[in-house]
C-alpha cells in the first residue's frame, strides 16, 4: 500500500517537474514532424493518466520499463545498485557498533568534558557538508599515495576487471553470514549461553572472507573493497555521529530507570551495569529512532558518490559507480523512466530496511513474541 502511494507520488512528481521531455534534446537536429514521430514512437504523446496506468501495471509485474535509450531500467539497476548497497552496508556495519560503543560510554560519563566533546564532535560529523569531507579525504589520500594504487584499481575497473557480479556475490555472502550469525545467536540464547561481542565481530569479518576465498573471488573482493574504501570511510564518518547522539540519549534515559538503581544496589560492577543493563535496554529505542534517520544517511551516500565524480576529486582518477551516477546522468537527459526507477529502488531499499529493523526489534525485544510456543 505504502509502495503504491510512493510510486504514484514519484510518477507524477517526475513527470510534472522535469523540464521538457526526452525528445527536446533533439530539437536542433530534427524538424517538428520528426519530433512528433519520435514522441509517438516513445509513447510520450499519450495522456498522462494512460501512461500512469501502464506504468503501474508494469510495476506490479516487476517491470520497471525501458530507459528512453532502449536499455531496460532493471538491467541498469542490476549493474549499479550493488555498488551503492555495498558501500551502504559496510559503512553502516562499521558505524553502528562503533557509534553504539562510543555513545554508551558518553552517556555514562555525561557531564564530563570528554562526553561534551564527543557530543559536539558527533554533531559536527553529522552536519559536515559531505562534498567537503570528500575533498579532504581525496586530496589527503592523493597526497599520501600519489594516487598510484587507486589509479591502477581504476584502470582495472574501467577494463571490466571489477564486475557487478562479484559485488552481488559479496552482498549475498554478507547477508548469508548475517543470517547465520542471527540463527546462531537465537540458538545460543535458547541455551542461555552468550558469546562475547569480539567473537561476533570476528565472525562477521572472517566469515565473508572465508566464503570469498572458497568461491575464488577473494582477490577481486579485496580490490573492490579497497576501491570503495574512500566512499565507505566518508559515509561511515557521516553516519557515526548520528548513532553516537541517539545512543547517548537512549542510554542516558535507560540509566535513570529503576532497574539500574536495583542493579547498583545489588553491587553489580559499574561497567556491567552499563553494558548489560542500561545499554542492552537502550538497543531497541536506538534502532527505532535510527530507522527514521536512515533515509538521510542514504541521501548523504548519494551526495558522497556524486562528489567523488567532481573534477577536483578526479585527481585520484576515481569514479564511484552507483545509483547516484545513474540518477544524475538521467536527470540531465530527462530520462524519466530511469529517474523514477532509481528513486523507486531507493524506496524499496528503505522499506526492506525498515522491515529488517522491525524483525530485529521483534527478535531482540523479549516482550514481543510472534507465534512462539511460550509467552
Amino acid at each position, binding site marked *: *500500500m*505504502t*509502495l503504491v*502511494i*510512493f510510486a504514484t*507520488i*514519484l510518477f507524477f*512528481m*517526475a513527470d510534472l*517537474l*522535469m*523540464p*521538457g521531455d526526452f525528445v527536446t534534446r533533439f530539437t536542433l537536429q530534427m524538424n517538428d514532424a520528426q519530433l512528433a514521430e519520435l514522441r509517438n514512437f516513445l509513447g510520450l504523446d499519450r495522456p498522462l493518466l494512460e501512461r500512469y496506468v501502464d506504468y503501474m501495471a508494469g510495476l506490479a509485474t516487476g517491470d520497471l520499463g525501458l530507459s528512453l535509450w532502449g536499455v531496460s531500467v532493471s538491467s541498469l539497476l542490476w549493474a549499479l545498485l550493488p555498488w551503492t548497497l555495498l558501500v551502504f552496508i559496510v559503512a553502516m556495519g562499521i558505524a553502528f557498533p562503533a557509534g553504539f560503543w562510543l555513545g554508551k560510554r558518553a552517556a555514562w560519563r555525561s557531564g564530563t568534558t570528554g562526553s*561534551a566533546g564527543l*557530543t*559536539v564532535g558527533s*554533531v*559536527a560529523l*553529522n*552536519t*559536515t*557538508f*559531505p*562534498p*567537503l569531507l570528500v*575533498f579532504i579525504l581525496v*586530496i589527503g589520500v592523493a597526497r599520501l599515495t600519489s594516487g598510484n594504487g587507486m589509479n591502477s584499481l581504476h584502470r582495472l575497473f574501467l577494463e571490466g576487471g571489477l564486475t557487478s557480479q562479484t559485488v552481488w556475490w559479496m552482498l549475498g555472502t554478507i547477508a548469508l553470514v548475517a543470517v547465520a550469525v542471527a540463527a546462531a545467536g537465537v540458538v545460543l540464547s535458547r541455551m542461555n549461553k552468550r558469546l562475547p561481542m569480539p567473537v561476533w565481530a570476528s565472525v562477521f569479518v572472517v566469515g565473508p572472507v572465508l566464503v570469498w576465498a572458497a568461491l575464488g573471488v577473494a582477490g577481486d573482493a579485496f580490490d573492490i573493497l579497497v576501491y570503495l574504501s574512500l566512499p565507505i570511510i566518508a559515509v561511515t564518518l557521516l553516519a557515526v555521529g548520528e548513532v553516537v*547522539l541517539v545512543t547517548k*540519549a537512549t542510554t*542516558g*534515559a535507560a540509566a*535513570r530507570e529503576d532497574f539500574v538503581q536495583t542493579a547498583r544496589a545489588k553491587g553489580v560492577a559499574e561497567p556491567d551495569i552499563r553494558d548489560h543493563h542500561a545499554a542492552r535496554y537502550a538497543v531497541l529505542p536506538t534502532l527505532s529512532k535510527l530507522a*527514521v*534517520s536512515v*533515509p*538521510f544517511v*542514504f*541521501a548523504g551516500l*548519494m*551526495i558522497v558518490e*556524486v562528489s567523488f565524480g*567532481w*573534477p*577536483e576529486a578526479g585527481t585520484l582518477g576515481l569514479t564511484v559507480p552507483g545509483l547516484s551516477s545513474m*540518477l*544524475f546522468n538521467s*536527470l*540531465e537527459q530527462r530520462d524519466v523512466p530511469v*529517474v523514477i526507477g532509481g*528513486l523507486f529502488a*531507493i*524506496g524499496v531499499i*528503505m*522499506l526492506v530496511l525498515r522491515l529488517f529493523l522491525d524483525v530485529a526489534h521483534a527478535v531482540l525485544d523479549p516482550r514481543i513474541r510472534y507465534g512462539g510456543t511460550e509467552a
Partner: protein
Amino acid sequence: MTAVAEPEAAPAPTERAARTHQRYAVWARYRQSRAGMLGLVLLLVFVLMALAYPILIRTVWSPNLYDPEFGLDLVIVDKVVVAEVADSQREVALAAAVRFNRTVQIGDTVRGSVGAGFGAAHLLGTDHVGRDILAMLLAGAGPALAIAVSAALTTAVVALTFATLGAYFRGPVDAVLSNTSNALLLLPAPLVMIIVGTSRYREVFSPVGFGVLYGLLVGGGAVAVVMRSEAFSTMSKGFIDTARASGAGSGRIIGRHLVPSLLPLASVSILVGITGAIVADAFVAFTGFGPNRFSWGTMLSWAIAFPDLNGPVPTPWNVLIAGGLAISLLAASFYLVAIGIQSAFDTPQR
C-alpha cells in the same frame, strides 16, 4: 488550529506565577546544557552575520570590491610567459598573452592580475579572482537562515497537523495520513530537492520556497512519523479524558491539550530535521543545478568549477573551508539547540 482562541478568564495570579516559574525552570535547565548554549551562541553569530551584510555593503564596503558575486579586488602583478602554466599566480600561458601583445614570447614578463589575497581589507582573504570571502560568508548567512526558519515553520505545521489529526480521529483519517508519511519517509528529501532544482520550477527556489518545500517533505515524512507515535501515547493519557469529560470540543482538545504537550519533542525533531534543509540547499547550489541566487553552496561551486581560466591554481582551501564550515556550523547550531531543548525537558517534572 489557533481558531480555538475563545476568551478565557485571565489566569489567577498564583497560576501565572507558577507558569512563569515553570518557564524559568526550563530555561535554567537549558542553561546547564553546554551543547545547547554553544548552539545558541553559534546561532546568534549567524544572525549577526546576516544582519551585518546589508549594513556593511551600504556603508563601508564598496559593491565594486565586495559584492559576493561581481565584486573583484584584483592586484596587478608581473607574470612570466610560459608554454604551460603550472602556477597561475606567477605565470601566464603564451596562448593567452599573445591575444594582448602579438610580439610576446616565452620568458617575457607581462602585466597580469591575481586576487588581492589576505590583508586588512580582506580579513579572510579573497579567492583567486578577488572576491572577498568574508563578504561571501556574510551574504550567504541571510538566505541560509531564511531557509532554516521557513523549513522549521512548515515542518512544524505539517508534522503537528498530520500527527494530531491522525491520533485524534484515528480510523480512515489516520490510515491516509500515516500511509502518506510512510511513503514520504521512503524518499530521501535532499534528493527530491535536487530533482526539483533541475526542473522547470527551479525558480520557485527562493530561500523561503526551498524551505517550505523541504518542510513539506520532512514534516509530512520523518517528523510526522516520530510525532504520530508520541501523539498516540499522549491521547491515552488521563488529562485528555478529563478534558473530554468536561465537555471540550475536538478543536479545543487538539489545540489546547494535544499540541502543547507535543511541542517539546516536536521542536527537537524539527530542529534536527532542518539541518538537512541547510545541507540540501548547499548541495543543490554546489552541483550547479538550481536557481540563480547566491548561497554558500554557490560559493563552493565557483571555487571548484572555475579554477583559474589561465591555468591551474592550488586547491582553493580558503574558500572551501570557509564555505563548508559555515554550512556545517549553521546546521550544527540547530542540532545543538535541539540537544539543549531535549535535556531541558528530559528531566522528569510535575
